[in-house]
């Protein structure tokens, strides 16, 4: 799993993931994602455009992130999910729980 973190604008962080998000890679993503909530952050976006697959451990990581976001009054969004990843969120009945956007740029431009 390749993970890149960019602060695109002050307080707006984008975490770009590339690779399958499964039990093997989720701990690595979690260890990068969750500490960002301790920074000065107003909006955290996870770019899933290069993630072809996600399992329950990956979704659990995002649920945990969403809970931290809600506690800290921080906006948390998922962007660029492909058909497979979206259908897995559907199967979990979680697609409407998360803010999901077609791509990162549209989210940032809307700020």
């Amino acid at each position, binding site marked *: 799993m390749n993970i890149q973190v960019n602060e695109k604008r002050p307080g707006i962080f984008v975490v770009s993931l590339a690779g399958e998000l*499964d039990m093997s890679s989720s701990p690595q993503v979690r260890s990068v994602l969750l500490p960002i909530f301790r920074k000065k952050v107003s909006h955290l976006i996870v770019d899933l455009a290069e993630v072809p697959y996600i399992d*329950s451990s990956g979704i659990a990581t995002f649920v945990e992130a969403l809970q931290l976001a809600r506690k800290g009054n921080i906006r948390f969004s998922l962007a660029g999910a492909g*058909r497979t990843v979206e259908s897995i969120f559907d199967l979990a009945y979680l697609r409407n729980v998360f803010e999901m956007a077609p791509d990162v740029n549209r989210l940032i431009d809307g700020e």
Partner: protein
Amino acid sequence: MAFVGFTGPIILDVPADPAAMFLVRALVGKISERIGFEAEEIDQLVLAVDEACTNVIRHAYAGVGAGRIILTFTPSSDYFEVMIRDFGKGADPAGFEGRDLDELRPGGLGIHFIKSVVDNLEYTVPPGGGTVLKMMKFMPKQEKHKIEHTSQ
């Protein structure tokens, strides 16, 4: 009529290690595709088998150390059967109960995924310990046939 030009099961014996699960996913995807499942069903089958193996790693082999998972794939033109054999601590039946999805919390999703996707799910404790989990997914036309047959 054989769907892939051969009959009989395919057996995959892998380490109970998350890093090996990509092999399981690749094989489930290829076989499901060849049987003729639709793209969304293939994704879901891959997820269901992956989650079952994840459960084995997380629970059956928790604290046991290195173990193996043996998957037996039996494809046909009408259905796909997957048997998952482990030699771990044995299944807790409560572990196969779904959870309340209204509650937003991490974890516990795996068994929900499995139950949502497969048509039949059963587990047995074979002699020698461990667990055998058997899951079946019918082709949509077969499901339709079953429903029609039942309603007559």
